[in-house]
């Protein structure tokens, strides 16, 4: 696309980070309120003052979604293989190893089964902090296996998405995970097994263009970035800033691509209700 000169004058810098900082007290990214970490946790990592949803990972979601003591993780140690011997500014294999050390996760997704409001479900939850929640072979395979548990046991399937998209370092293999995961979801659909997709900040790229958008019911946390192309790419293509609220959860609901936006504090209750309707 080198034919046109792009104007970058109208483009403002990328948006703020929203991960939970270390320490006992944290400052809300949005309203600057100082909150104790325990208080934040009790409020499911939502600012009690301005409702800002801090980005949390699979550990936190599993902690408040499941009936106590019912969740069992599966395939925890499955990890990536550097098939392509991929090197950018860093070797992929080093990137994987250091990220595993840093995050205590083996890849950008964790799966398992447990009970939510007494209903047994199979679940997959992504973690943005593992290489941007990127989808490679491991994410695809773990979703496929978790979907298969749903099929075999005839129990609902849930995916919580939090991902920048397909993982570049596994190139075409990553792309094929869109097909692999969607093919399994098609099987669930044929068997009339419910699939619920929960979108959190951010859900973009190949993740959105596959399982994230295929739920029988799709719910999203407030103000999460949800889209196909990232805002930076779109800004650079059209050479302008994007309208306020563009690609946010509320925007997606307004345009018909999300069933409803749900506050994290009500996520579990809403999920149980939907599960009851779909059973």
């Amino acid at each position, binding site marked *: *696309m080198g*034919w046109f000169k792009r104007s970058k004058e109208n483009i403002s810098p990328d948006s703020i980070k929203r991960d939970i900082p270390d320490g006992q007290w944290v400052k809300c990214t949005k309203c600057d309120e100082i909150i104790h970490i325990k208080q934040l946790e009790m409020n499911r990592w939502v600012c009690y003052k301005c409702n800002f949803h801090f980005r949390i990972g699979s550990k936190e979601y599993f902690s408040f979604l499941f009936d106590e003591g019912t969740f069992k993780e599966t*395939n925890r*140690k*499955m*990890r*990536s*293989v550097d*098939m*392509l011997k*991929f*090197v*950018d*500014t860093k070797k992929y294999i080093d990137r994987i190893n250091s990220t595993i050390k840093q995050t205590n996760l083996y890849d950008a997704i964790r799966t398992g089964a447990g009970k939510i409001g007494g209903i047994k479900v199979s679940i997959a939850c992504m973690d943005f902090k593992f290489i941007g929640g990127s989808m490679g*072979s*491991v994410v*695809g*395979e773990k979703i*496929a296996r978790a979907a298969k548990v749903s099929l075999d046991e005839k129990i609902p399937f849930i995916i919580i998405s939090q991902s920048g998209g*397909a*993982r*570049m*370092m*596994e*190139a*075409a*293999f*990553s*792309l*094929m*995970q*869109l*097909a*692999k995961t*969607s*093919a*399994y*979801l*098609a*099987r669930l*659909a044929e068997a009339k097994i419910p699939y619920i997709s929960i979108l959190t900040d951010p859900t973009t*790229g*190949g993740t959105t*263009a*596959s*399982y*994230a*958008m295929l739920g029988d019911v799709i719910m999203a946390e407030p103000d999460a970035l949800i*889209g*196909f*192309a990232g805002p930076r*790419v*779109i800004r650079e*293509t*059209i050479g302008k800033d994007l*309208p306020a609220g*563009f*690609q946010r959860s509320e925007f997606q609901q307004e*345009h018909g*691509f999300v069933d409803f936006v749900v506050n994290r504090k009500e996520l579990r209750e809403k999920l149980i209700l939907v599960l009851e309707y779909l059973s």
Partner: protein
Amino acid sequence: MAANILDFEKPIVELENKIAEMKKGVYNHDISKELAQFEEKVTQIKKNIYSNLTRWQKVQLARHPERPYTLDYIYTLTKDFVELHGDRHYRDDKAIIGGFAKIDEYKVMIIGTQKGRDTKSNLYRNFGMANPEGYRKALRLMKLAEKFNKPVVTLIDTPGAYPGIEAEQNGQAEAIARNIFEMSRLRVPIIVVIIGEGASGGALGIGVGDRILMLENTWYSVISPESCSSILWRSWEYKEQAAEALKLTAPDLLEFGIIDKIIPEPFGGAHKDHNAMAEILKGQLKIELADLIKVKPDKLVQSRLEKFDKMGIFEE
């Protein structure tokens, strides 16, 4: 022609020009021996260059502005094409073309992304970058093919799905996801051919099938080398390295088991001889069609799932 010479083709063109000049000149001695030597040299150089192309050079060939596009194939290798427009919801996307066509005795639904050849036609075709309505049109046609039991052939040549405001508002991600989902269970054969660029979700949106074929000088990956460079190196300058790292050529993907077959191109690339290229592709399509129409729908869908299920490398 001169405008469309790629950097690595320059030595060839220079020699060929020299030979042409020699042929035009008037000499008082016989130059046929010298000419023969030069021609021999050109052949040698060509062989050398085209059999040692780097991955980036193949990306350049895949984007060659004189390469045959979807409509060129439709007009040369099929007959009685009936183009079908629109997604029945919003409008007709000019970046994706589709309709019924005959490949000799086979009646098929043929669908492909379409680039333009000059500025005007490129704007009309949106540079081969589809919007949601394009993917929805493609899906409508595939469901039509399923209903009337016709195999589907898709031809892919796209720099990606269009990243625009309207595309997002209209659900680019949902449209691609829906296509991938539905294609994975479509009850008629699907043959997918990468004829140029196969960029990411924009390609896969019409790219799930029973046979995935790639022309010799094409690329298929999760991202273009330029965008990969921009994200991982934070600069547009590393596209050559990115192309190497992504291993995006036909031989790479064949080795990984992601595609089924490489379709050879005429010497020097598909753009050197459109008719020969179309003949080769037609032959391959007929081989695959003959094979796939014998398979029962249940088996077809089951094997398709197993095919994609196998893609991925991990350890436990």
